Structures are given as structure tokens and as C-alpha cells.
């Protein structure tokens, strides 16, 4: 039994039954398939996070985001005072995380690609774009640049999904996606 020493002393020389060998072979192959699937997706898939990342001083990132918001601001979000910023199609967009807000609100055009820069000014936060459920971790001092291409118009929520303190659950943001040539 499993609580007794192996019955034959040289257990490592026992033959392995065929069914067992078959399963080991199948499971091993399946592991290889899953391994190469990730590599395959990097080459042919459309959804891969970028590795375009740099160290950045949070103060510098804040400055860049402020400049960006000032330059491309199109309106304010209701009476919240938060700017809604519409970057040129194909251009750079900035969104910063700080306890407890995502800033500013963005307006993007459907079908256009944007270089989205995200970083945090203080703690770690989680960029969770809903309802499409796309989740990216955000660190202070690291600037992550992801090229995204919205595929459908609508109002998207940004929820913080990395616990960042007692106000974690009020930390939300927003991205508008409009049909090209509209909005503004």
C-alpha cells in the first residue's frame, strides 16, 4: 500500500503498463500544444499585451497626462469637472491611475488604433475595461503602452481591480467609443 515501502525493492525497474504510458504521452503532448498555442498567438493572434514598457517618474507621467488632457480636451464629463479627451486617431492617449480615480475620461473612435499609455502615481491599481473584460495591471513608476483598437461604439467602464486601499471600490473611469467622424 501507499503507506508501506514499495513491495519490490527495485521498484524503479518495474515495467510501466501500456495504458499508463499512453496517458503520459497524451498528457505530455497536450502540454506541448498548450505551450505552443501561446507562441502561435503571439505571431498570429490579435490580442497580445505589449512589452513596450519604460520606467518613468510618476511626476513626469502626471505632467504628460496633464499636457495631453489640456491639448485634446473636447468637453467635461457632466458636472464632475473631469475632462473628456479625444486624442487624434492613431495617436497617443494617456490615462493615469491614482487613489481613487482613473483620469481623464477618453473618447476614441471605433476601428481606429490608439497607443494607450497607462501608469500609476501612487500604488498598484488594476485597469479593468468593462464590459469587454480586458484587464491590465498598473504599477507606479512603470509606463505601459498598449495599442488598442476599439471594435464597437459604446460607453465603457474602467474599474479598479487591484485592491488599492479603503476606497478601492469607488475608483472608476470611463472610455467613450464613437463611430468615426462623430462625437467631439
Amino acid at each position, binding site marked *: *500500500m501507499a503507506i508501506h515501502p514499495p513491495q519490490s525493492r527495485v521498484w524503479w525497474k518495474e515495467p510501466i503498463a501500456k495504458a*499508463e504510458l499512453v496517458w503520459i504521452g497524451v498528457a505530455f503532448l497536450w*502540454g506541448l500544444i498548450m505551450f505552443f498555442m501561446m507562441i502561435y498567438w503571439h505571431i498570429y493572434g490579435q*490580442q*497580445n499585451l505589449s512589452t513596450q514598457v519604460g520606467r518613468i517618474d510618476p511626476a513626469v507621467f502626471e505632467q504628460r497626462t496633464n499636457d495631453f488632457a489640456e491639448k485634446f480636451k473636447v468637453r467635461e464629463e457632466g458636472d464632475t469637472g473631469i475632462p473628456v479627451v479625444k486624442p487624434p486617431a492613431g495617436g497617443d492617449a494617456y490615462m493615469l491611475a491614482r487613489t481613487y480615480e482613473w483620469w481623464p475620461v477618453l473618447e476614441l473612435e471605433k476601428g481606429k488604433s490608439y497607443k494607450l499609455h497607462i501608469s500609476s502615481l501612487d500604488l498598484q491599481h488594476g485597469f479593468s475595461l468593462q*464590459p469587454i473584460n480586458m484587464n491590465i495591471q498598473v504599477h507606479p513608476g512603470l509606463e505601459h503602452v498598449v495599442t488598442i483598437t476599439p471594435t464597437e461604439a459604446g460607453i465603457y467602464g474602467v474599474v479598479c481591480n487591484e485592491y488599492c486601499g*479603503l476606497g478601492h471600490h469607488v475608483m472608476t473611469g470611463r472610455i467613450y467609443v464613437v463611430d468615426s467622424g462623430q462625437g467631439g
Partner: protein
Amino acid sequence: MTTAVAETGMIGALATKFRICPATGLRVDLAAERLIKANAVAAVVFLAIGGGFGLLVALTRWPAVHLLSSDLFYLALTAHGLDVLLMWIIFFEMAVLYFASAVILSSRIAAPRWGWVGFVLMIVGALMTNVAVLQGDSSVMFTSYVPMQARPHFYLGLILFAVGALIGCFIFLGTLVIAKEEKTYEGSIPLVTFGALTACIIAVFTIASGAIILIPTFLWSVGYIGHIDSLMYKLVWWAMGHSSQQINVSAHVAIWYLIAAVTVGAKPLSEKVSRTAFLLYILFLQLAAAHHMLVEPGLSSEWKIVNTSYMMYLAVLGSMIHGMTVPGSIEAAQRKSGFTRGVFEWLRKAPWGNPAFAGMFLSLVMFGFLGGISGVVLGTEQLNIMMHNTLYVPGHFHATVVAGTTLAFMAVTYLVVPLIFQREIVWPKLAKIQPYLFGIGASGISLFMMGAGTLGVARRHWDITFPALDVTLPYGYSPAASLMMGLNGLSAILAATGGVLYVAIVVASILFGKKVDASNAVAALGPMPKKVVHDAVAKYGDAGTWHLPGTYVLVGLFFTTFILYYFVNWKYLSELWPMQ
């Protein structure tokens, strides 16, 4: 201890007292027995506390109930993670290590005094960290990601706890050495001990990683160190945090083999294969920190892919092998006992009324189907984008560490109480349903949290309804999300009921259970097919018995589910916004 055949071995200056176990014939070192008892009792106490916090958390996340205030919710969640994942699991693992070395090898335990030093350190550490959390300004979750800061004694408690556990690991290793030198067994160590050895080796590695990161973090919290990099912290923290899950897997797989051996007389189909599968855990243990960092900036994809897949899924391969050999060995044993009709008579006539067996088999099935499959999907670099930090993550690990590890530990308790505490289980009828209640509840919380996670619901989040009051930019999850959270709450009540029953049965049995002696020693282990405590299966279940149609069907079903679910998720991924 009426049957204790006291035997005194004079070894060095130490007099070791043994008794002979009337059920198994094993020679039990009384010093080891006391340590096992102490650690097991501490484990159960922390399960009770931590489980209580878990229920509060689940009830808060149920929008219709929304029990706790936000501050208390984050406090309870921090306490829940610590008390169950660290305290309950690791105290119990200490008991398992001592049992798998001293008891199973009929050896004296190495340095029992140090065992008590370790135990006291763990208790002091656990209490210190709990106090820090309950004081209210250390709600940083058990992961305590920097730069979020807890009070210094939060970290200090964890460090003491880890040092205590490390001492336990060395006592286990020392006991193996003693047993070998004093020739208390012949040939190689039994498979169960081998599994425990795997767990121990991994534990030593992970505790070292834990020390590397927690000691500087402690110094940072008292002001000696100015800055700790958040990415570096996370990398080292998860080298401990994820690898230590491999300790749990090794420990509960060893327990599956143990329970199968005791309740149906199962023998490993092939020692070589089962041991190699354990070895795979050791070889690839240092990987998988990436599971928690797949959508992290600053790490290369090459590193992520190799690390997350344990170098091409070789540790997963280990689990898939156990997934066949454990049910296979049960089927072989049952067939030898005469349950040969059809494909599944062996399974139908298995001792489902024995809580040790029922808990073990449920743990096996749920760990494989729910925990294993979701874990591989979650750990796939790109698929992780759809799940990272959503409730899918706690959903996955409640299938592994609750339905898998915790249920297996509960199951083995039904053997430990009669064998070590030498008490019969009180309320056998309740004990019989306990594993089902807890198992169904635990798979419910896993499934519904995974469901909510698929709908985007964030983990560690007080309120998914974003009351317009304090949220400037509210977002509404789909109504299905609230439904999932409600079902999760109901499952939590079920699991908690099973948990309360477990604690009550264990405590009552230890205090009031009928004493076990030679007359009832075997019966106390619960109903078994034909009472096969002593070698009912005379020969190996190897080549000769390798006709195990039931196991093939189970494994085939598992594999089909796995493949389908895996590719369905790639399909979902392809519908996401393109991103590079």
C-alpha cells in the same frame, strides 16, 4: 491509551516512548503524537476563525445582503486569506509531515523539543499578524503588495510563523534520516512519505523566498529601508506564494494515496510513475510566479510563457498523472475485492458512507475538473487578460485549495482522530454528510465566482453596484453578475455549514468520543468494503490488473472537458479588442 504497549528505546540520552497502533500495527512515537495533536488542533481553530471571515466576506459580496461596511469588509478579507490559506493549511501540513515521517515509518521523531519551539513560534506569529489585522490599519490583504503598508508586527508575525514552519520541515527531514539509520523500514520510503517529502522540499524553497521578501518589507515598514520596488516585490512574493501552492498539492495528493490505501486497500499502480509525478513538482517548483504577473508591465513575454507553463506544463503533467493513477489504484483495489461488474461497479460500491473516502474522492474530482482546468486556462498568458484580478481568480483557487486541499485535509481528519487522538468519531450520521455539504458548497463558490469573473466582476471589491452616491463615473455590471454573487452567497452558506459541522465533529470527538482500543480500532476508521485495513490486495496492481475501464472513462471525460474549455476561451479572446 489503554492499548499503549509502552516500549522504551534508549537512543543516545533520549528515552523514546512508543505505543503500537492497534489498527495498523505501526509503532507510534508518543512525542510525535503530541506534536501532531497540537498542530492539528491549531489548524482547526484557525479554519474556524478564517472560515467565519470567509462567510462574512461572501455575504457582503451578495448585493442583496451586503453585510459589512467597506472598512470591515477589507479587514475581514485580509483576515480570511491569512487565517485559512496560511494558518489552517500550514498548521495542518505540519501535522501531516510529522505523521508521514514518524508514524508511517514507525520511527522516533527528530528533536521533538525543537518541534515545540517551531509550534510556539507559529502560534505567536499567527496571533501577532491577526492582532495587526484586527487593529484595523493593516487591511492590506494577505499579499501585502508594496507600496501599500501594514503595521510592522503584521510582517513580523508572518516571519515568525514562517521560521516556525521551517523548523517543522527540518524535523521532518531529520526524522527521515533517523528512520533510515535505525532501519525502521525496509527498502525505499512509502509513497505517502515520498509525497510529503516533495511537499517539504518545496516548503523549504518557498519559505526562503518568503524570508527574502518579507524581511526587507518589515525593515521598510519600520523605516530602515526607503523604497521597495513594487514589481520586484511581487516577483519574489509570488515565487513563494505560488510555489507554496505546490506544497498543498503535494500534501493533498499524498493524502489521496493515504486514504485510498486505508479505506479500500489501494496500492499504487506503479511506484515509478507516481514517484516521477511527484518529482516533476520538485523540478519545476521554482516556476509559476508568472501566474500572477501575466498582464504585468515590465516583464518579457518569453519569460512569462516559460514560467507560467512550468516549462511546457511539466508540473501540470505531474498532476494529470496522479489524476489517473489515484482513481486507477482505487479501481484496481476494488476489482480485486470482487467489484468487477460493468464499468463502474467498483465506484458505485465504494465506501461512500465513509467520510474519509467520500471527502477524498470529491476532492480528487473537484480539484481536477474545476481547479485544474481553470488553473491552466487562467495561467495561459493571453487568456489571462480576460481574467486577471476578476473573481475568476478566487473562483479558481477555491476549487484547488478549498474543494481540493481543504476537503482532503478534512477527509483525512476522519482517520487521524481514531488513529492519533484514539477517539471514535461522534455523530457518524452527521460525519457522513459533512464532506458532501462542504464539497458542494465549495464547488458552488468556485463556480459562481468564476462565473462572475467571466462577467468582469472585480475581486477584493466591496460593492459591485457602484452606488451613485460616492462614485463619480458609475459603471453597471450586467444583472447576471448580481445573480452569480447571490448564488455564491448561498453556496457560501452551504460550505460554512459543512465547515461548522466539521469543526464541531472534530472537537466533540476529541473531547467526548469513545476511546479507541484493540476492540474497535478498525471499526473506528469508518465503513469500508470488506474491512481491508491490512493488505487486502496481496500483489501489485501493475500490468496484471491494468484493465481499468472505469478510470479510462473518467480520464477521457476529464480530457475532453479540458480541451473544449481551453479552446472556447481562445475563441472568447479572439473577440476582444485587438491590442498589441
